[in-house]
């Protein structure tokens, strides 16, 4: 691969740098003034950011809704966790695991590479089919993938522990790691968006027949975007497992899918900056709502405990964005173009 960048990619570097500065500013603020429990929130935000930016790569550029990302995230998380957890710990947490899964341990690096390649291969295999489908077809097959993977997690409790916690994963990552990953993700996604492939993909989304007539290989571009997307999700999954130390099947299902999709469409699925901004806004909104949900004492009035408020907010955001702002906050714009009028 040559390092020669086209003009849009060079513009992309500017935009990505701006977004990275935003990320760094947030992290810096935390180190200066933050309280330790906020590290967890920040970490989770950046994991979500990885996923949302990854979603942007396929869903945003190809403009096809897909819901399977938390499945890929789950696969990578479990693979990495099973590889990296010390055998002694696995003897306790996975006593019945078959094929000697609880009798070996690998270094974090090898575990990460293994998790990435397994998820990548699965992404490639599913992508071969996905790239050939259109519109609702992709959505339904992606839901099928999500449901299938989830049922396997729940069914093979001897390997995945189902809805119970798989514990004892060494805590390898911390805030600096995920910050670097998030920034890298922003750069990669942006460079992809402005690359020839990204352009072709966006052209296909607008007019598939037209793009084909111009000689664009629709399948290949979709496949490439799909696989890159799955690698993003895999990275997010690994980062998730390496920080929390315990994982279970529950978070890798519909709720997380909705959360991330809402983040993407609020920001505007056609731009990487939109993905980043949407993630940050929804995270902030949800933190406020979660606080309200627990029934805080506001001095004058004691708020009642309200479960479901955060979900409600998520739904309202999705509907409101779709109704009033179908292109999201950023529309087709990136952060360096923020003062330009949205071309459409």
């Amino acid at each position: 691969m040559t390092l020669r960048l086209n003009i849009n990619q060079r513009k992309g570097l500017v935009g990505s740098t701006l977004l990275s500065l935003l990320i760094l500013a947030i992290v810096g603020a935390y180190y200066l003034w933050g309280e330790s429990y906020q590290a967890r929130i920040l970490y989770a935000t950046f994991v979500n950011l990885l996923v949302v930016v990854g979603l942007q790569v396929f869903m945003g550029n190809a403009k096809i809704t897909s819901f399977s990302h938390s499945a890929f995230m789950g696969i990578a998380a479990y693979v990495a966790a099973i590889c990296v957890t010390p055998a002694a710990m696995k003897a306790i947490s996975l006593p019945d695991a078959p094929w000697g899964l609880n009798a070996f341990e690998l270094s974090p690096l090898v575990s990460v590479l293994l998790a990435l390649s397994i998820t990548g291969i699965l992404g490639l295999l599913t992508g071969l089919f996905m790239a050939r489908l259109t519109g609702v077809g992709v959505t339904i097959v992606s839901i099928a993938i999500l449901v299938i993977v989830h049922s396997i997690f729940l069914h093979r409790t001897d390997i995945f522990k189902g809805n119970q916690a798989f514990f004892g994963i060494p805590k390898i990552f911390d805030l600096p790691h995920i910050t670097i990953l998030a920034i890298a993700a922003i750069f990669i996604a942006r460079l992809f968006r402005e690359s020839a492939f990204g352009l072709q993909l966006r052209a296909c989304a607008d007019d598939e027949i037209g793009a084909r007539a111009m000689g664009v290989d629709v399948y290949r571009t979709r496949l490439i975007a799909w696989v890159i997307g799955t690698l993003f999700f895999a990275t997010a999954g690994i980062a998730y497992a390496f920080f929390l130390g315990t994982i279970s099947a529950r978070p890798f299902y519909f709720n997380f899918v909705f959360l991330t999709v809402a983040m993407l469409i609020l920001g505007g699925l056609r731009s990487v900056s939109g993905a980043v901004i949407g993630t940050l806004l929804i995270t902030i909104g949800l933190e406020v709502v979660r606080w309200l949900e627990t029934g805080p004492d506001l001095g004058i009035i004691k708020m009642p405990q309200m479960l479901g408020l955060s979900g409600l907010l998520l739904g309202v955001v999705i509907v409101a964005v779709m109704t009033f702002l179908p292109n999201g906050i950023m529309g087709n714009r990136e952060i360096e173009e923020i003062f330009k009028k949205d071309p459409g």
Partner: protein
Amino acid sequence: MDYVIQQVLNALSFGAEYALIALGLAIVFSIMGLVNFAHGEVIAFGGYSMIVVATLLTGNPWVLMIMVLAACVLIATVLERVAFRTVRGADLTTGLLTAFGVSIILQNLFLLLGSPRPMAATQFIFLDKTLTIGAIRVSSLQIYETVATVVAIIILLTFLRRTTLGIAMRAAALDFEMVRLCGIRANRVIAGAFAMSGLLAGLACIFIMARRGSVSPHMGFDPVLTAFVACVIGGFGSLPGAVLGGFLLGICEVAVQVLLPQSYGGLAQAVVFALVALILIWRPDGILSPAQEKGDKI
């Protein structure tokens, strides 16, 4: 023999439930191109309103059934008015995501105003008895369900064939603007479609309630997911396709349960979805839908 008939009935009744829900999805989709994922919450709304009516007014199951049907029709038309009218004519993704949003809102409203846990509502479980016909023992609910679905489909078909609004709804699936050019109000056609999908959801709700005896915020989600799959198998937007897909899925699900060893029971859903993915890869537009041409209409 007993076992075979039991399983056939199982398949038919599962299939009937999916077909009912799938038809509701297909009617709306065929006319306005909206994949209405909030359909499951219409079903759940029927369940919750039944609890409200049962505690406040009457426990008479027949009255309650009518109330459930009415509630589902009401909520479906209200959703069309407040949420889906604004995204009419928007692309598929916008509609799909809006519907997901509505679905999440309703689920969480049920959670907030009702309870996260299932609430008991046992007024309909009297429908589920074991009947002994000769030497064969079958569940009465399964028979009711199959018969009611067939009757509902026949009524629906008659409506679509015989009434002006019904014909307009079929015409709108092909060329909505031309229907408007014939002087038929777009809002009436779409509201009609939603009302009908609500009615079908209400029917499905009665049977789901009879089987479960309780309501929960997420009760409609899984059935609609499966029904969505049924629609896709049959060819999205095709009404006969939705029915066919529903029954096929019912058969599939029972076959998977019968054929797979007991210990793999948890994987039934996975196998069904895998089959669906394969069908889609084989025929991306579904079984019953003709290959569509891309590009502009001349």
